[in-house]
């Protein structure tokens, strides 16, 4: 299930320091494009703040909204005495070799915290960027959404070159306090030789909302991630939307888990996966340990030409009165749908790409227009590849 094997010792976790970048618009055009595809707009227009980590260094950190604090995690640990009650409380540092690597040799990461009651309309953007050859990156992110505040983070993770060898290990811990709302949009923009092992967990208090959007349209050698969110307070809500495409050579094991641990909690996991030759494993789990609690899973997979999609929807109810449901399907594009569109004058290729675009078009609230465009652009590029 873990895909191609690799050794962390093949990557260099030391010495790839990068100098600070005062102005993101001074990045070269190629990097800008990669960042844009990962959701980062270097003009920083309509952004509440920006954070950029390159190889082993935080290179840019800026907040333009007093309602949100953005720091490099190393500074935050100093400033807040090691972030007790937060740092390493959601993810177990001894979970596996990747968490241990991140604990032992921390390169950086972002710390983002809202002020109580602050409703930050414009998104904070962050990017964890791998530029050097065979660089391994250990980052640790902590996001705290204080009571009754609201925040949208767009985070892109990218490599500079499509064939560049790189390893990305990232710990992320989320804390959504009473009545808070976090929309977390993550766009992965890896390459054929990138290995990726994020470890993510979070907790949502009463009345809080965690909305997670995940987009992976580019190749990746191997990626395994399984963010877990616990709804600990009454009426908390979590939603995961993900859109994953795996071309030949990609091995993606990407799932999510929601624990409904308080009355009145609701969870929803929606995933759209498409392979044109790669492997996608999509485990999803909703566990209900309180009543009333409602959860729904929807995993839909399309195999185009060749590849493998393994959807693993799991529902685990431990009390009478929980309401959990799921809908899963792995298939191909229905001939009936193609013919319907052909009857409207589209040729077969146009009909197919229209259906694929629709399939991958999961509504993700609040995406800035430029990012939406960048995503559509990438989906259009998939169409023109020989796989379709």
């Amino acid at each position, binding site marked *: 299930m873990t895909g191609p094997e690799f050794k962390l010792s093949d990557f260099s976790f030391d010495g790839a320091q990068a100098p600070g970048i005062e102005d993101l618009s001074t990045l070269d055009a190629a990097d800008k494009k990669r960042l844009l595809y990962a959701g980062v707009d270097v003009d920083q227009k309509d952004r509440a703040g920006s954070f950029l980590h390159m190889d082993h260094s935080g290179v840019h950190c800026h907040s333009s909204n007093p309602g949100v604090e953005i720091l490099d995690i190393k500074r935050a640990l100093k400033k807040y005495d090691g972030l007790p009650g937060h740092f390493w409380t959601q993810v177990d540092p001894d979970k596996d070799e990747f968490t241990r690597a991140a604990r032992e040799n921390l390169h950086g990461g972002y710390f983002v915290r809202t002020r109580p009651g602050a409703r930050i309309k414009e998104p904070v953007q962050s990017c964890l960027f791998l530029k050097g050859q065979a660089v391994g990156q250990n980052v640790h992110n902590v996001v705290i959404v204080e009571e009754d505040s609201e925040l949208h983070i767009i985070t892109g993770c990218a490599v500079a070159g499509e064939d560049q060898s790189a390893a990305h290990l990232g710990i992320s811990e989320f804390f959504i306090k009473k009545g808070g709302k976090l929309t977390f949009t993550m766009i992965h923009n890896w390459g054929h030789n990138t290995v990726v092992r994020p470890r993510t967990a979070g907790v949502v208090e009463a009345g809080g909302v965690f909305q997670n959007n995940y987009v992976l349209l580019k190749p990746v050698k191997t990626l395994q991630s399984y963010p877990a969110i616990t709804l600990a307070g009454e009426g908390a809500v979590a939603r995961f939307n993900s859109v994953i495409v795996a071309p030949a050579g990609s091995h993606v094991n990407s799932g999510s888990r929601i624990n409904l641990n308080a009355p009145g909690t609701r969870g929803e996991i929606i995933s759209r996966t498409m392979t044109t030759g790669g492997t996608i494993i999509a485990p999803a789990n909703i566990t209900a340990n309180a009543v009333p609690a409602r959860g729904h899973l929807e995993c839909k997979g399309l195999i185009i030409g060749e590849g493998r999609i393994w959807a693993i929807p799991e529902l685990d109810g431990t009390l009478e009165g929980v309401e959990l449901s799921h809908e899963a399907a792995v298939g191909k594009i229905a001939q009936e749908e193609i013919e*319907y569109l*052909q*009857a409207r*004058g*589209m*040729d077969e290729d146009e009909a197919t790409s*229209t259906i694929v*675009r*629709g399939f991958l078009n999961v509504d993700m609230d609040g995406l800035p227009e430029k990012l939406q465009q960048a995503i559509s652009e990438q989906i259009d590029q998939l169409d023109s590849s020989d796989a379709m």
Partner: protein
Amino acid sequence: MLKIENLHVRIGEREVLRGIDLEIAEGETFILFGPNGSGKTTLLMTLMGFGNYTITEGRILFKDVDITHAPIHERARLGIGMSFQRPPTIHGLKTRHLVQMCAAHGNNKNGVDVEAMAGRVNFDTFLDRDINAGFSGGEIKRSELLQLMAQAPDLVLFDEPESGVDLENMKLIGTTARRLLDGFIEPTPGVSMKEQKSRRRTAGLIITHTGYILEYVNADRGQVMYNGHLCCEARPRDILDHVGRYGYQECVRCLSQPGSIQESLGGAQ
């Protein structure tokens, strides 16, 4: 405009159409009657070019082009449009987008005012919904009509426009179907409505069970399909009255008369 010659069609091993000859002139509306399973829908699907229908004999000409083996989209681009009875849901494809695509590939290359057009079939609030997702019977019909309005084909194939539609929707669907066939005639300075009417070009081939649609469209000719054959050509109203009174049994008798099609086929069945 449409000419079908000795058309034989199989679905799998089963022969469903057994020698259909039919001509529909420009602007003419032709009504097809017949019991369930007689081959009516097969004829429409074959005309549109769907994959499961194998033509074993005969040919189809549209605007003098032989389209017997043309792919679906070429027929659509030549000017054939079809209203589906049970269209598939396409998730993520907004109705608005599909209507725009219909216009772009049909006779409205310069685009259409989608909102205004949708308003005519009381469908403007559905434009941002995924096509056919959770649509009721009447909503499907209105959506199909809207797509056809945008496409503006020269021949419209309607498969049971009245099925699954309540009476209130029937009026809207019936009048829209008529306008689609007759043109959206409105008082215009300089051109009389009669003159506008005489310019109509859209032909129609309509399948009906109940005949409700006849109250709205100006049907020119009609015929009964029975067991893969066409028989009993008459005025559509008369066919409807006859079938209403005696059922399709009469068609069986008609077909089994000496010298009938059945006889000439060697008395099979």
